């Protein structure tokens, strides 16, 4: 279960960011922000190869002592960043991939809404519910 989920636009500003409420949200925001550099680095590294072959899932961006940060980038350079608790060792890579895939599907649903202008903050309730389902259940 993720502790923090963020959607970053192509211009590197957040479209959606949500953290588990009990944690210090600012810390997560900062982590997401620093992870953007890593994402860009990975994109540029992969970009040398054919863009078509670039995989959307970026994998572990950087681990800290408490958390691990995973990244995912879409073909339109919209980035999904997910922070998970390091103690949650049961989380496997495949699970992270599936979570990102669900996020991506929800994101495309949001984009399909004609009332949504790309670049706006995401306020879709369906998207919120998807993220909630992935967030860690903090009592």
């Amino acid at each position: 279960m993720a502790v923090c989920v963020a959607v970053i636009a192509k211009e590197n500003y957040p479209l959606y960011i949500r953290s588990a409420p009990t944690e210090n949200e600012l810390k997560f925001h900062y982590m997401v922000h620093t992870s953007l550099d890593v994402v860009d680095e990975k994109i540029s590294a992969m970009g040398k190869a054919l863009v078509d072959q670039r995989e959307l899932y970026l994998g572990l961006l950087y681990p800290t002592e408490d958390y691990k940060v995973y990244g995912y980038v879409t073909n339109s350079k919209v980035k999904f960043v997910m922070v998970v608790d390091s103690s949650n060792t049961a989380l496997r890579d495949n699970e992270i991939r599936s979570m990102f895939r669900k996020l991506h599907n929800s994101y495309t649903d949001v984009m399909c809404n004609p009332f949504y202008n790309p670049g706006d903050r995401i306020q879709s309730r369906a998207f919120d519910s998807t993220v909630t389902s992935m967030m860690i259940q903090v009592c």
Partner: protein
Amino acid sequence: MSKTDAEIRFGNPTELHGTKVQIPYLITEKNAFKRMDDEDKQQETQSPTMSPLASPPSSPPHYQRVPLSHAYGKLRSNTEQMHPAPYEARQPLVQPEGPSSGAPGTKPPRHQASLIRSFSVEREPQDNNSNYPDEPWRITEEQREYYVNQFRSLQPDPSSFISGSVAKNFFTKSKLSIPELSYIWELSDADCDGALTLPEFCAAFHLIVARKNGYPLPEGLPPTLQTEYLQAAFPKPKRECALFDSYSESMPANQQPRDLNRMEKLSVKDMADFPVPTQDVTSDDKQGLKSTADEALPKDVSEDPATKSGLLPPPPALPPRPCPSQISHLRVNSKRSAQPRPPTQLPNYGDFRLQKQSEQAPEAELHPQLNRAPSQAAETSPAKKDIPYSQPPSKPIRRKFRPENPATENQDTSTAVGGPASAATVKPHAAVQKQSSKQKKAIQTAIRKNKEANAVLARLNSELQQQLKEVHQERIALENQLEQLRPVTVL
């Protein structure tokens, strides 16, 4: 929707919209209705056939309501809880409202509320509140027809989609906020493909109408608005459309004037808080009042045909619609009715309708016509019932009636229902409709003039303000000079 929730939410929308007068009323009414509806519901469920208007059990519950709502057009929204009950309440003519007899008092208010609602529905295509007994999310026959008409105005092929941009432009006219529209889209576009099929469009329209009437948006798509349900409930879109055409012609005209009346009078009554519908609502209330309804009907009828005519011409693919002459007639009526409505009531829907009418005749007319048609339908609930059940016979009847909408509708309804009131109302309706249409035209022109005058005055005001500022600055400068020169002069 639970009553409590509705009640709670009811308050919110009003605040949001600031609707103004009606909403507070509606809220109370709504609450009252809710409680009563529950009681009625129970009663109704037990004896759905009690009300004369109740449609045969084979038809979905909303059919029953339809007759009621049809008669009252607007009540639909109110009756959300007890569809059958509201019908009964609405049909004072019919009377014997067995099921809801338990709460006779509640009925009238509900009736009004539903009338109001139905009105608003008529006024604004979106307002069509479903007459779901459990909640306002059920779409009545009239509403459905109205929605289908609107759909056709955007997309001639009922089995195809409306693209996202087209739908966006259309729904933006409703003057709801973008986040709300975005949420409504999210609810109604079940497959998230960025396009709306007919059931999805009806659901979205209905949600918008409900929202305009002040109903809080649900957390999830209500079951009565889901695609499968809508497709099952309305298996013959064409027929409905055809019916609708006939309806809309008569209905919009009737409904519009009715709405106006109702809204003004019974804003409170109508549960539908749609601001726009207020006009319709008022008309609905009238219907509820029965005597007024009769008057309204004729008016509506006349208006409906006009609106209908307006609507009909635009969609070429529409099935045999009422005569174009009727349409034009309707258009005129609808426009007139539409214009006065919005200014009086709610800026949201009303403007949506009216402005659009002038700018987009087909759409606007459709809406008012739709509203009217539903209202008329509601009034002539019996007719409505006939419609679902005996579509073929009713259709031809309607067609004939169209030219004489007021008369036909009444006749239709009377034959269908055999309600004495309907017959009587037919004649007065015709006269009333004509008068109302004329009045509407006059009111609309007056409104236009006032708007122009307002614009001119606003400009003048801004210019004068600027001049005032400049003069003020000059004065300050002069005072400064004076201060500087003072010692000199003194010396």
